[in-house]
């Protein structure tokens, strides 16, 4: 169906093409772009939690979080899994019953935490998947 449409467009005057272009540009510049799925800053402060007496380091860490819309077309402005693209198309066909893909982390990093236990022994532990490095649509 896409190739048919392309063929039809070629035969039309330039006016609708221009309209289409301006529409797509408007999509990217509109509030959709502002609410698009992306990484947001979120700092977890161990100090604010009142834990500086047992956590030696760090004082906190930038955990971050993902938030925003996963709207068509996904590939244009964000990381998206192959399935998320299909999910978007199915959502477009059946918006009432099929949800949009979720905005979620695509890359996660580890952090290391240094802390005292009850016996004043010191523990250095690596925690996987604690920091969001990149977000995308799943």
């Amino acid at each position, binding site marked *: 169906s896409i190739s048919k449409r392309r063929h039809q467009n070629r035969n039309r005057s330039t006016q609708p093409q221009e309209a289409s272009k301006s529409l797509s540009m408007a999509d990217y510049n509109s509030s959709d772009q*502002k609410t698009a799925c992306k990484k*947001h*800053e*979120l700092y*977890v402060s161990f100090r604010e*939690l009142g*834990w500086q*007496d*047992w956590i*030696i*380091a*760090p*004082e*906190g860490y930038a955990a971050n979080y993902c*938030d925003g819309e996963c709207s068509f077309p996904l590939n244009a402005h964000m990381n998206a899994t192959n399935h998320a693209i299909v999910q978007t198309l199915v959502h477009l066909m059946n918006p009432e019953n099929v949800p949009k893909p979720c905005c979620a982390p695509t890359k996660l*990093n*580890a*952090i*290391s*935490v*240094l*802390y*005292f*236990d*009850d*016996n*004043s*022994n*010191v*523990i*250095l*532990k*690596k*925690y996987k998947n*604690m*920091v969001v490095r990149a977000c995308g649509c799943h």
Partner: protein
Amino acid sequence: GNSEVQSNFIQRRLRISEKREMQKEILSILGLPQRPRPHVSHSKFNSAPLFMLDLYNTISEEEEVPNPHRFVLATEGPPLASAQDSAFLSDADMVMSFVSLAEHDMEISLQRRHFRAFKFNLSQIPDGEAMTASELRIYKECTSQVYENGTFLLSIYQVVQEHQDRDADLFLLESRTLWTAEEGWLEFDITATSNLWVMSPHHNMGLQISVETSSGRSLRPEEAGLVGRSGALEKQPFMVAFFKVSEAHVRSTR
């Protein structure tokens, strides 16, 4: 970053109960049932925390994550972590240091044999952690006393059986010849012994070290420059163990 995003985000302070819930959730992520309550009035500046901080900073550099809170305590002096520690560290998921619970210098008067005893509590090691390496670390200062050849022999033993009426049964773990002028951290591999202690805690009767000259005369450890409990805080002996996670951490439903 984005002021608009920030204004949409936290718009109120958490209530006390909510803050407690938040603390519980983060403790759960850290795999802790409750927050530890250590007694650390001055022990923050002991050798073990400083050593661990050294490892922490090494990891932070390797992870290449911008670390605005790079921690530097009183780390002046000889480097704590060795190349071997860095190798252990790259393979480890967890590192744990243990302070000696009982450290005492004793002399068996009949033989005039001096020794120093150490005891470590390994009961707090979390489940699912497999120990890959462990070492006893003792700081040696330069001594002005002159012994035969300028060297002496340091031996480290595992206490196998204790007796009330006679000397403990010992198992020799390592002997090392040291120069009197030598200064720095001595590392002794005690991986096999500490694995035995983890598997059967009733075998954990501690370690003993003894020092003698090349002619076999027993020396007090401090005569050989070995720093003990009475020495500088940043040179206190301690044990460090490296672990690999052997099973996935499953968070329980709350």
